[in-house]
C-alpha cells in the first residue's frame, strides 16, 4: 500500500530554487503599498513578480523594492515588450539591477488581448537561456509551443489560463490537461486569467505545478481575504490532483449498500 507524501515535503522547484508555496503573485494594481504587503503575507507566496520601467526624471520616486518583504524571491518580468529585442534588453537590465537570473519572459503580440507573441517569445528564450537566465516564459496554452520552449532550455513554462487581467478563469482546460499528460516531467505554471479561488483550484487540479496571478488579488474588494482564498485554493487543488480524482460517470452509483434495505 502506498502512502501519500506529507504535504510539507511536496515542494516546488524552479532552476535550483525550492518553494513550499505554489502560488506566485504580482505586485501591480494594489491601491496602497500597505495593502500589497498585507495581501502578500496572507497569500503565503514566496515569489513575487515586478516590472522594469524607465525612472521618472526630475522627480523623486519612491523605491518600490523597499516595500517588499526581503524574504520574497523576486521574479522580474518583461511586461510591455512587443519584440524579442525589447524583452532581451529589459531582461539584462533587470538582472543587472537585481542580481537575479530569474526572469518571467513576456513578449506581447497585441494590445487588446495582451496575448503573447509566441514566435518572439521563443526567439528571446533561446538567446536568454544561453546567457544564463532562468527563463519562465508566458505563452499561449499550446502543447507544441510548450515543447519548443522546454527544448530551448526553459526550466518551467507558463501557459495562460485566459487573457491577462481578464479574470475569466481557465478557458481551455483540455489544453492544460493535454500539456500535463504529454509533458509529465515539465514544470507548468498557469499564468494569467485567474479570477477567483475556484479558477486557481481548477488550474491545480488539472496538474499545474503552480499558479501565477496579480489582478485577481489586487482588484478584489478585500485583497487580503482573496489572497488567503487563493492560498487555500492552490493547496486544495494541488492535494486533489495528487490524490487522483474519481472517474466521472454519467449515471448514479449508490454510496450506501444496496443489500439489507428495510422493505
Amino acid at each position, binding site marked *: 500500500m502506498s502512502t501519500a507524501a506529507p504535504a510539507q515535503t511536496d515542494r516546488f522547484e524552479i532552476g535550483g530554487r525550492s518553494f513550499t508555496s505554489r502560488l506566485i503573485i504580482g505586485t501591480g494594481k494594489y491601491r496602497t503599498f500597505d495593502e500589497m504587503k498585507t495581501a502578500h503575507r496572507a497569500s503565503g507566496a514566496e515569489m513575487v513578480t515586478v516590472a522594469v*520601467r524607465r525612472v521618472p526624471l526630475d522627480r523623486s520616486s519612491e523605491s518600490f523594492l523597499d516595500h517588499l518583504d526581503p524574504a520574497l524571491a523576486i521574479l522580474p518580468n518583461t511586461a510591455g515588450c512587443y519584440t524579442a529585442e525589447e524583452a532581451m534588453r529589459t531582461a539584462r537590465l*533587470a538582472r*543587472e539591477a537585481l542580481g537575479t537570473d530569474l526572469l518571467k519572459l513576456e513578449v506581447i503580440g497585441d494590445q487588446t488581448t495582451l496575448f503573447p507573441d509566441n514566435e518572439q517569445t521563443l526567439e528571446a528564450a533561446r538567446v536568454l537561456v544561453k546567457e544564463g537566465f532562468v527563463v519562465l516564459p508566458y505563452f499561449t496554452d499550446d502543447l507544441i509551443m510548450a515543447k519548443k520552449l522546454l527544448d530551448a532550455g526553459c526550466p518551467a513554462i507558463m501557459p495562460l489560463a485566459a487573457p491577462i487581467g481578464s479574470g475569466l478563469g481557465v478557458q481551455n482546460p483540455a489544453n492544460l490537461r493535454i500539456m500535463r499528460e504529454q509533458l509529465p516531467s515539465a514544470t507548468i505554471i498557469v499564468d494569467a486569467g485567474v479570477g477567483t479561488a475556484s479558477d486557481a483550484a481548477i488550474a491545480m487540479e488539472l496538474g499545474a505545478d503552480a499558479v501565477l496571478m496579480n489582478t485577481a488579488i489586487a482588484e478584489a474588494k478585500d485583497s487580503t481575504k482573496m489572497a488567503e482564498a487563493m492560498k487555500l485554493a492552490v493547496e486544495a487543488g494541488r492535494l486533489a490532483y495528487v490524490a487522483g480524482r474519481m472517474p466521472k460517470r454519467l449515471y448514479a452509483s449508490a454510496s450506501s449498500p444496496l443489500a439489507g434495505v428495510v422493505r
Partner: protein
Amino acid sequence: MSQRLLIQINGEPREVKENISLPELIASLKLKPEQVAIELNQEVVRRAQWESTTLEEADKVEIVHFVGGG
C-alpha cells in the same frame, strides 16, 4: 569653461557636463544607485564599469528601476 554634451536619457534630450561619469549622472538626477540599472546605447553597463564609463555627445542612456507588475 567646460563644454556641455547633448545626450538622451530615457528618450528625453538632456544637456550634461563633458566627461560626466555614470555615478555622477545618477547623483545629478537624485537617483539611488543601488536600485537602478543603466543601458548605454542599448548595452547594459555593469555596475563595476559605471565609474570608468563617461558619456559622449549623442549617447543614448536608459535608466530603469522596478515598479509593481504582474
